[in-house]
């Protein structure tokens, strides 16, 4: 009697809460595109190629931000990916060593570590001594954020390589390094690249690590040792201004960022389902 009631309530709860869980995503994507795409159309190609407009005067462009995002992703990948892949390899190949165990625990912890602390850390050790906000400092912070993702995916991918391939390689007399890089990596390639792209997608959208390391650049595209802007950073700053045109630029930038993110992330997720963290 009550059983049936509880059953119905339960099913209702599961269905309704599942919708509640997914609804925000739909609404956020919708809002960002609904507000942002008209802005991009109004701004035309200049929106993507010019620098920031003056307060209250039109849309200008977000080129320094786009440039900054690409530069930071590039640099942070350059710094972070090699270290992450090597670390992941170590953990996968020598799983029993104490160092390996501690690093693995560490990486899992760092996966969702407060990113603002990473930014402050880099500020303390690099920005202040250097005397300038810079792209390199920001990239270092992003590399640290990216590290756990790439390393964990690499480790999992390598561990999933079937033993007999490795045994065959050893039987042929190959040395360990050869075995790993020529044989295991080839097979684990898909998983490793997934990790790379997940890391890239993640850091392209990060804001907190940049606040105290990148400075910001509204009109210039400086070198590696100079302040740099980035799309998430711009959105964060523009949104706190009272000028309506800055808010519009923020929505437009958000639409650009979201598009970038979805374009990397969706194909990635759709094509590679087996590797899961």
């Amino acid at each position, binding site marked *: 009697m009550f059983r049936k009631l509880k059953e119905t309530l339960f099913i209702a709860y599961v269905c309704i809460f599942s919708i509640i869980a997914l609804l925000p995503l739909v609404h956020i994507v919708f809002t960002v595109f609904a507000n942002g795409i008209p802005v991009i159309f109004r701004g035309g190609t200049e929106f993507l190629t010019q620098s920031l407009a003056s307060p209250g005067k039109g849309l200008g462009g977000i080129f320094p931000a786009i440039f900054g995002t690409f530069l930071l992703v590039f640099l942070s990948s350059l710094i972070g990916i090699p270290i992450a892949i090597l670390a992941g390899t170590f953990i996968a190949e020598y799983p029993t060593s104490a160092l390996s165990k501690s690093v693995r625990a560490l990486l899992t912890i760092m996966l969702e570590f407060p990113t603002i602390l990473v930014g402050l850390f880099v500020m303390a050790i690099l920005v*202040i001594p250097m005397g300038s906000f810079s792209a390199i400092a920001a990239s270092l912070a992003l590399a640290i954020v990216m590290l756990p993702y790439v390393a964990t995916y690499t480790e999992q991918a390598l561990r999933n390589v079937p033993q007999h391939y490795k045994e065959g390689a050893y039987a042929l007399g190959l040395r360990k390094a050869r075995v790993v890089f020529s044989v295991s990596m080839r097979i684990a390639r898909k998983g490793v690249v997934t990790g790379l792209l997940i890391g890239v997608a993640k850091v392209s959208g990060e804001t907190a690590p940049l606040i105290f390391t990148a400075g910001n650049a509204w009109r*210039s595209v400086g070198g590696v040792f100079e302040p740099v802007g980035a799309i998430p950073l711009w959105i964060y700053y523009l949104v706190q201004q*009272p000028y309506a045109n800055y808010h519009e630029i923020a929505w437009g930038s958000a639409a650009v960022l979201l598009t970038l993110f979805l374009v990397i992330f969706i194909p990635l997720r759709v094509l590679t389902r087996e590797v899961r963290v």
Partner: protein
Amino acid sequence: MRKWALVLLALVPLLAGCATQPSGEKEVKKVNVYGSGASFPAPQIYAWISEFEKQRKDITVEYTSKGSGAGINDFKLKLVHFACSDPPAKESEWREFEKLGKPLQFPFIVGAVAVVYNVPGVGELRLDGETLAKIFAGDIEFWDDNAIKALNPDARLPHEKIIVIHRSDSSGTTEIFTNYLSIVSEDFKQKVGAGKLVEWPVDKLGRGYGGKGNEGVSAMLKQTMYSIAYVELAYALHEKFPIVSLKNKAGKFVQPTDETISSAIVATKAFVPDPREGYKEDLKQFLNAPGENSYPIVAFSHVLLWEGYEDKEVARAVKDFWKWVLTDGKKYMLKGYVALPDEIVKSALDAIEKIS
């Protein structure tokens, strides 16, 4: 494979960026000058930067509005080439700067702090220093309090709690405003005091909110009914907020306008020290100025520079920009900002010549 594709993809905009930079001609070496600081003069600085860029394609000036405190912060850490601060530096700060180099400071613009509000149905509001101080100290709770009614017998004041919006960051605007309130109200001076960052009693009473920068405060005022706030005049004008008419020392209720601001400066014997001794300037000199037509909350906004820069290109760029600001810049003033009187400009220009 995909990794290389991604790397190549990332390289494309880098190359594109380098290609779009110099327009035609030979490689024009661009110099970037970085500054940060007060949000008070920020709109005017952005306007100046736009104009300057049109005339000098080889210099790009970047200014980030973060508050006077953050500007001084960056200046002290040598993260920027110049910093803008509303209040002049204190002696203790100046000594800190002197450990790192030879600092220069001079005013570059005159501004005013406006008291703005968002109360539907109330078009004009008159307040005097004491009442204003009581509001911001949290002693007056409702809009239809007797003190406010006495000054505004015709206004339809609602029986709503006053929401006070102040700055959450270290701000020169706050320092100017709290100094004014401390001058006109001994009670405020005791309870809250003056400074870039103060503890507002309204926070503990649940009626206070902090906004970041003049921008943040403006944004919050727009969204919050029955609120009152203090912002730099240009923001009030740009957002078309209703501005409080304040009672000045002579007893008249005045709005902040070019005339009332200039009147305050003219009526006071302005003392501007040698730029090498910037700390000797007194922030309070224009506050509650005498004069029939003077607006009571007027202040200079200052810029901090170094006499010497490591990079000679940067030194030249800094020099050129600030010289331009003090001379040609007068042609491009925005509403709400007043240019410096000529005598003061002269000593500043002399100091700039020394930059190398």
